[in-house]
């Protein structure tokens, strides 16, 4: 069912409210903020991957006008910087500054001075005495008996836990009897996969400005995906009453999940501001940022069984997550990894063991897809292999087994279950197959010569929030505030953050659609924690489904009030009145159909309401979405492998997406282009390897050696086709679902399958670099 044709604003490309400010460089990000008497901070970082800090001697700078902060001066509180899960799922092992650094780059101190240069010079004069400890850089090594313990004790829900074998947490699940399932399988394939550890490379490095206020409170401008969780965490650490902590919404220069947690710069700057009683700015350099966060590296042992008719029978997954030096959201992720896996294809029997393991590396956090790109790569690679062994076309094999409408879905983990109510998988796969002439693709490894082309396909999904009919371990609700202004326009306020994808514009369109007003009449007001109701965080591709759901809820409440006021003015029955958009007058209009002269604009309603003292028409409310609808995606990619250099390039891309009602087609397609570029790079390029001797990143944090693709690495636009399935999500605002993460999730599997189709080699490690391709081709040649 589609309602696209009935919409006036939705489904049309519209100009973004923040567009002009962004393209003219006038948008102010947290790293642009400058306040009078502001100090600039620099962080003292551990050069060792694992050590005790014995002392920090600041005597050389005691005569300088510099504020120094050491671990002894910050609250002695262990916390978790991410507050999206319930307390029983939130493991705490962080401190504002540590005297036991667990990775190269971990903050052990900080200085603040009048300029960044002065602060840097002071930093270099600090003398630190360390007791270096041995370190471990591989998750499997870290679990061995002889490995050094990275954490002795961590906290879960106020209870202290002892850490054994560096395993931070684990999840074990079995549904059905997987052993029996394998016994009944005609064919079983088992493989081990190892993913890369990618850096987000968001445009804006982590940054914060903190101003201490005369009332003992603080005002905070920071890179964050969640205003309210930032306030809650700062309250927990520093004990400042929440009403005196004001976290202001500032545009975010990209994030990809790296600011779901409160970034380490934030509490450090708060501590410096409280100590110095002056505003403090702390902006990480790119090199510090690269030592601050990365994706989770995962090692999977995946086993799938199928009947000879091509039905999956059983599955087992062992997942080892390399989480680095601290936990950010390892436990919920272990639940998601199994959720992502079992919600792709129907498995009558399945078992899972997931372990999150500490290593002396940069802490891992969510990165667009939250483990889904990793496991989908493994599953989609194995599905291809299984299909090959069964002699079934891989696309047909997927169609036989996918989870779709009416099926139980628990992508966001075992505590977030709901039933799928809209699904475009079949449409995506059949239409995409036609567009690339799938069934006539080359036979694997059939080509000779220098350049070899191959076509691969893969599919996936992501959730649109973590909603469900009953509460689970993931907090997920938002809220919105909408009021009618005296000229018939509206002010819309939400705590929900826009990462740059145009989420808030989508909210404005949803409101404009519901209230029948021109889009320009919806004014988005940037607000703060004091003037908004709680929103958990912009993550899980929930911006439109959840945030837009909240916007729609308050718009409907406002609409009822408009109806009542108009009823009084028109001497009509409120419930019988209708709404329409009047572009000539630039107004929404309420009218009694068929009765001439019985109509009134929103402006006239507001005018009347003010002069007759009826009050302001406004609504504020929270909204919990009832379901967790997956948005589905499918990719068909043609690649060309240069067998002389090992370089692989994308020749053409066909991408289909089921996102329910499309709110802004160009922005939605943009998400897919970006998702493909990021997934492409995940497949063939990105990683953050370590130098075991020094314990630091091999690239030392320099992006000159952390390459991401440019437009030149992507296919020409005419060879990149995007289409949207014709679906409608009954629980979504006007039928809409998410797109952000599903745009990325199937890419790695698709590209890997295309490479296999071109050269006949399967890779089980990411990234599949030019070095690996060339060496595999040589090996193949030598053995032939």
């Amino acid at each position, binding site marked *: 069912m589609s309602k696209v044709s009935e919409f006036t604003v939705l489904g049309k490309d519209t100009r973004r409210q923040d567009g002009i400010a962004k393209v003219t460089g006038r948008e102010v990000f947290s790293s642009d903020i400058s306040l009078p008497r502001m100090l600039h901070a620099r962080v003292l970082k551990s050069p060792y991957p694992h050590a005790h800090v014995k002392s920090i001697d600041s005597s050389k700078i005691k005569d300088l006008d510099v504020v120094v902060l050491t671990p002894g001066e910050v609250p002695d509180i262990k916390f978790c910087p991410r507050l999206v899960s319930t307390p029983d799922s939130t493991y705490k092992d962080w401190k504002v500054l540590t005297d036991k650094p667990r990775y190269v780059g971990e903050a052990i101190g900080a200085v603040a001075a009048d300029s960044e240069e002065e602060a840097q010079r002071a930093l270099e004069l600090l003398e630190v005495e360390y007791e270096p400890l041995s370190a471990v850089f591989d998750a499997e090594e870290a679990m061995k008996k002889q490995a050094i313990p990275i954490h002795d004790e961590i906290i879960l829900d106020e209870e202290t836990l002892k850490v054994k074998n560096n395993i931070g947490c684990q999840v074990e699940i079995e549904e059905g009897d997987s052993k029996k399932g394998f016994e009944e399988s005609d064919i079983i394939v088992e493989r081990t996969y190892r993913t890369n550890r990618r850096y987000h490379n968001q445009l804006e490095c982590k940054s914060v400005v903190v101003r201490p206020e005369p009332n003992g409170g603080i005002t905070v401008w920071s890179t964050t995906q969640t205003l309210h969780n930032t306030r809650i965490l700062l309250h927990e650490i520093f004990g400042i009453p929440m009403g005196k902590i004001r976290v202001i919404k500032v545009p975010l220069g990209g994030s990809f999940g790296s600011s779901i947690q409160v970034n380490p710069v934030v509490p450090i700057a708060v501590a410096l501001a409280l100590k110095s009683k002056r505003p403090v700015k702390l902006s990480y350099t790119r090199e510090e940022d690269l030592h601050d966060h990365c994706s989770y590296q995962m090692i999977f042992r995946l086993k799938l069984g199928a009947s000879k008719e091509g039905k999956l029978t059983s599955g087992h997954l062992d997942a080892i997550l390399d989480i680095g030096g601290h936990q950010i959201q390892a436990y919920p992720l272990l639940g998601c990894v199994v959720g992502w896996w079992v919600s792709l294809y129907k498995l009558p029997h399945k078992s899972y063991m997931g372990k999150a393991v500490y290593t002396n590396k940069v802490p891992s956090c969510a990165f667009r897809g939250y483990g889904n790109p990793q496991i989908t790569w493994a599953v989609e690679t194995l599905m291809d292999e299984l299909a090959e062994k069964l002699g079934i076309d891989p696309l047909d094999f997927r169609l036989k087994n996918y989870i779709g409408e009416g099926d139980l879905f628990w992508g966001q983990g075992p505590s977030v279950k709901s039933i799928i109510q809209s699904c475009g998988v079949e449409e995506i796969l059949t239409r995409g197959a036609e567009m690339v002439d799938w069934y006539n693709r080359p036979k694997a490894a059939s080509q000779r010569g220098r350049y070899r082309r191959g076509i691969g396909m893969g599919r996936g999904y992501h959730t649109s929030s973590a909603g469900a009919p009953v509460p689970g371990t993931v907090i997920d609700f938002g809220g919105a505030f909408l009021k009618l202004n005296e000229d018939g326009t509206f002010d819309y306020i939400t705590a929900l953050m826009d990462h740059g994808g145009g989420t808030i514009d989508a909210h404005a369109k949803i409101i404009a659609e519901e209230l029948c007003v021109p889009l320009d009449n919806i004014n988005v007001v940037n607000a703060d924690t004091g003037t908004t109701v709680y929103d958990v965080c912009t993550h899980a591709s929930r911006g439109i489904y959840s945030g837009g759901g909240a916007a729609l809820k308050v718009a409907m409440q406002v609409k009822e009030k408009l109806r009542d006021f108009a009823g009084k003015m028109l001497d009509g029955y409120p419930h019988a009145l209708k709404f329409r958009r009047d572009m000539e007058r630039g107004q929404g209009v309420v009218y009694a159909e068929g009765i001439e002269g019985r109509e009134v604009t929103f402006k006239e309603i507001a005018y009347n309401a003010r002069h007759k003292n009826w009050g302001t028409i406004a609504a504020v409310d929270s909204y919990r979405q009832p379901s967790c609808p997956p948005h589905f995606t499918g990719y068909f990619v043609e690649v060309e492998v*240069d067998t002389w250099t090992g370089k692989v390039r994308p020749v053409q891309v066909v991408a289909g997406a089921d996102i329910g009602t499309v709110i802004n087609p160009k922005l939605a397609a943009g998400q897919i282009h970006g998702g493909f570029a990021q997934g492409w790079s995940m497949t063939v390029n990105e990683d953050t390897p370590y130098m075991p001797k020094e314990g630091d990143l091999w690239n030392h944090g320099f992006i000159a*050696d952390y390459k991401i693709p440019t437009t*030149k690495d992507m296919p020409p636009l005419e060879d990149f086709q995007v289409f949207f399935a014709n679906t409608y999500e009954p629980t979504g605002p006007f039928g809409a679902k998410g797109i952000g993460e599903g745009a990325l999730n199937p890419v790695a599997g698709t590209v890997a399958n295309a490479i296999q189709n071109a050269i006949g080699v399967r890779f089980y490690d990411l990234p599949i670099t*030019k070095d690996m391709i060339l060496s595999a081709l040589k090996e193949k040649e030598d053995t032939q």
Partner: protein
Amino acid sequence: VSINKFNTHIIPTRFEYHTPTTITDAVELLKKYENNKILAGGTDLIPKMKQRLLEPRHLINLKKIPELRGIEEKGDKIHIGALTKLREIERSKIIQKKLPLLHDCIRSIGSVQIRNMGTIGGNVCNASPAADGALGLIALDAITHIVGLNLEKEVKIDKLFMGPGHTILSPSELVSNFTVRIPEEGSGGCFISVGRTSLDISTISIAVQMTVKRSRIQVCRVALGSVAPTPLRLPDVEEHLTDRKVTNVLIETAAEMASDGIKPITDIRGTAEYRKQAAIGMAKEAITTAWEKAKEAER
């Protein structure tokens, strides 16, 4: 380098900044302040100072010396001032027409933004084994003009490099310009580089320039980048190809020789084995393409 020092954002060290307007003044300043670094485009120098790989006390900015900049065709030679912006060379009709190989090499350096700032002298004197501009000049057998106090000398460009970041220049000398002889009729060249993305320092690169007379290679120069401590010219391969008629067998053996002749290391951009293996295919392609272009030009 310490994690608490390096970055690409701040230069906390103090230095003096000098802006001479003549070559003589520049050379005098270089002589006077031994602990100096020359600022040309700054695209390598400034990041290196932020990374604290270089901490010069004196920065000698050469941008205000007009005679160091520009492209000029004189007789059978082309002169390129050391301070000429890479983008200027890329867009020069003279270079595009007369030195297409150099044009291809320059176009491969960094991004447009980098090429708008960076200079050919900087690309060369930074002495990176991966410098694409240097590689082109080597394959074109360019002459480097060096100026010091009461001193002027010329060296062939492939003799300029000592190792990564090191040239034969003393701290009081500067490169004023490069001279390239315009290749004769029947010449062709080819430059290829492989990187991790299209905007990357070469993992490995090759430049081949040759002149063909009566279907035989008369002159040939082969140079590879990122395969040794300096940009590497391979005389053995050149000799093998010279005075020969090109056949598949000749190209295959030349390519194998090129691969055998390089001494790559494993670094973050690629493994030594990769470079050895990729060199074969790249040499095949570069020699074949240069040969085809030269033959085309001979007609």
